[in-house]
């Protein structure tokens, strides 16, 4: 296949799976027209309007109907367009999808993928920029996938579509155009396995989704100054690769978790708390997080830039830990 953008990678991944398994279908607003982001471009022509279902603006029903369709044995991809709109479908996601299997003692198989492109992207302001992936790590019954690049996104989407668990798949809006390499056949990437981006002894940097490229850039800058760090991309925050992080921190003694989401109550807190507990606090020199301040996302470019994590902030945070 060669070089593709992230949006093309996830398009190809869904395409491959819909060709493989005709129980897979997609529903959401404008999907018959290729989706808001082009992630379903051409699907209508190939699969027809019964498997590529453009829906009314009815998020509750998009989500709930996806569940119902799963309960009779189909495997829907539920497209939410932009993450923030899932707030219109939270009962269906939180009270129904996440719980049916458990409540009914294992009778239900809610094999849905819920796609929710998230994060800051071109000054979309407070109602179109949120990253609340941490919420779902706290919610029993779901898998939480947070890819940061084209290849991972594609492989994780294949895995998600094949999974019998409900998978919440967070496409990183800001990275749609990020280029990457893709094999002709996209292999599934298992959930809960971190990707080691680079290695070093000075500190362990953990991140995921749209913050990942910044962390890589920061690590490069640091390397230029002779500071070599371990960089881990969690890829999925539930399950998450505790062992990989713990092993790295054992080596480095310093942990920095970076995410675009608000720092307070973000998933970074879970990573820190868990690793501190596993390692024992006295075995650590530092365990920190870097995220957004606890404010809604502002519109004006300089304000948005100011509240975003950045490579510079990551560099400064690492230096502050040494």
């Amino acid at each position: 296949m060669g070089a593709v953008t992230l949006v093309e990678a996830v398009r190809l991944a869904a395409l491959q799976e819909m060709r493989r398994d005709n129980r897979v279908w997609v529903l959401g607003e404008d999907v018959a027209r290729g989706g808001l982001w082009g992630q379903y471009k051409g699907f209508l022509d190939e699969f027809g309007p019964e498997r590529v279902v453009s829906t009314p603006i009815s998020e509750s029903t998009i989500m709930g109907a996806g569940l119902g369709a799963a309960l009779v044995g189909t495997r829907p991809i539920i497209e939410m367009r932009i993450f923030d709109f899932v707030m219109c479908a939270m009962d269906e996601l939180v009270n129904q999808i996440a719980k049916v299997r458990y409540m009914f003692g294992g009778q239900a198989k809610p094999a849905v993928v819920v796609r929710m492109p998230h994060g800051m992207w071109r000054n979309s302001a407070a109602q179109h920029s949120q990253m609340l992936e941490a919420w779902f790590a706290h919610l029993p019954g779901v898998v939480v996938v947070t890819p940061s690049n084209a290849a991972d996104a594609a492989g994780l989407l294949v895995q998600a579509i094949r999974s019998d668990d409900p998978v919440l798949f967070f496409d990183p809006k800001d990275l749609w155009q990020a280029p990457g390499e893709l094999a002709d056949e996209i292999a599934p990437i298992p959930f809960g396995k971190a990707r080691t981006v680079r290695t070093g002894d000075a500190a362990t940097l953990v991140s995921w989704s749209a913050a990942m490229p910044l962390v890589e850039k920061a690590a490069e800058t640091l390397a230029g100054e002779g500071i070599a760090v371990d960089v881990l991309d969690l890829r999925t925050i539930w399950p998450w690769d505790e062992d990989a992080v713990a092993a790295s921190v054992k080596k480095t003694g310093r942990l920095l978790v970076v995410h675009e989401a608000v720092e307070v109550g973000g998933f970074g807190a879970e990573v820190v708390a868990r690793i501190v507990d596993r390692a024992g606090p006295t075995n650590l020199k530092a365990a920190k997080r870097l995220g957004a301040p606890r404010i809604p996302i502002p519109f004006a470019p300089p304000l948005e830039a100011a509240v975003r994590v950045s490579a510079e902030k990551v560099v400064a945070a690492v230096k502050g830990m040494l």
Partner: protein
Amino acid sequence: MAITDFSPVDRAGAFEASFPSPRKPHTHRRTSMTTSGDNLKRLLDLYRTMARIRAFEETALEAHKAGDIPGPLHVSIGQEAVAAGLCANLRPDDRLTSNHRGHGHAIGKGAEPARMMAELYGRASGYCRGKGGSMHIADFSVGMLGANGVVAGGIPIACGAAQGLKLLKSDAIAVCMFGDGATNRGPFMEGMNWAALYQLPVLFVCEDNGVAAFTAAESVTAGQGVVARAESCGVPGVTVDGNDVLAIEETARDLVASIRRGEGPRLLHARTYRLLGHTSTDPAAWRRAEDVEAARGREPLTRFAKLLQERGATEDALGAIRKQAMDEMVKAREGARAAPWPETAVAFDDVQDVGAVAWAR
């Protein structure tokens, strides 16, 4: 005053006058009494279903009162005709989503009372391994996709089930049970539009008992009623007397047939009456005594028994059906009471395949 349940605490009659007393006349499509093709066996089967639902719920109520059954218990006593008449027209592979008041729907759909009762008791042999209770009764093996603790929660799920069945080229249909209260939640309208748009094989059944929890439906519902709401979105609907099991049975038969022929969704609006309170511990004392008394006179079992006797059934035969039903449920209760609790490890099962916590971490 102790709070014992999801039941009202301010039971004084401040709203007494608002409870719907003089009902608008029901719209039947035809008189059920004159239907051809009735035969006693079929009628007695309907009576049996109603009697079993009644016996199940009376037994459960008693068990709840005795402290055997934990959690909230919503019974449908007085509304049995809807489940019985409707489900007589359904196949096991038809899927049904229910609400919080779902015992009748489950029994009608073919679930086993013994496993239901065990679930109400929270026992390992219950349908949900003791993890659901009354509000989450489900038996997927007979197409009962579950009760639901969220009002209107089953509506989008039923739409999706119908859509999935259509995609799979099945001729099974989906049925969606909800109360009058659910028609004021947004998913109701979304579901009507959705089902009409994709011409889905789904039957919506509004069990209108005139009340949502402790508030009269009339006092929180404006406009022309559920049928008008559904029709404005493209779902044809019909109102029937929900306490007349034959009216339900016949109307449902026609609706199910046309849905199965691929003619798209339909709505059945059944006007009925909740004889007891919202939950097992709610006396619903705010209702006018004479209204409740009058409603008792219209309750579906007695009323159907009268009709059956006119058609030649003996009081003995009917009594035997009732007794058999009660025996079945008493036995179910005894079985449930004797059944073991689920092992603690069961609490850690059925969460998710990947990323589940192990027992005990």
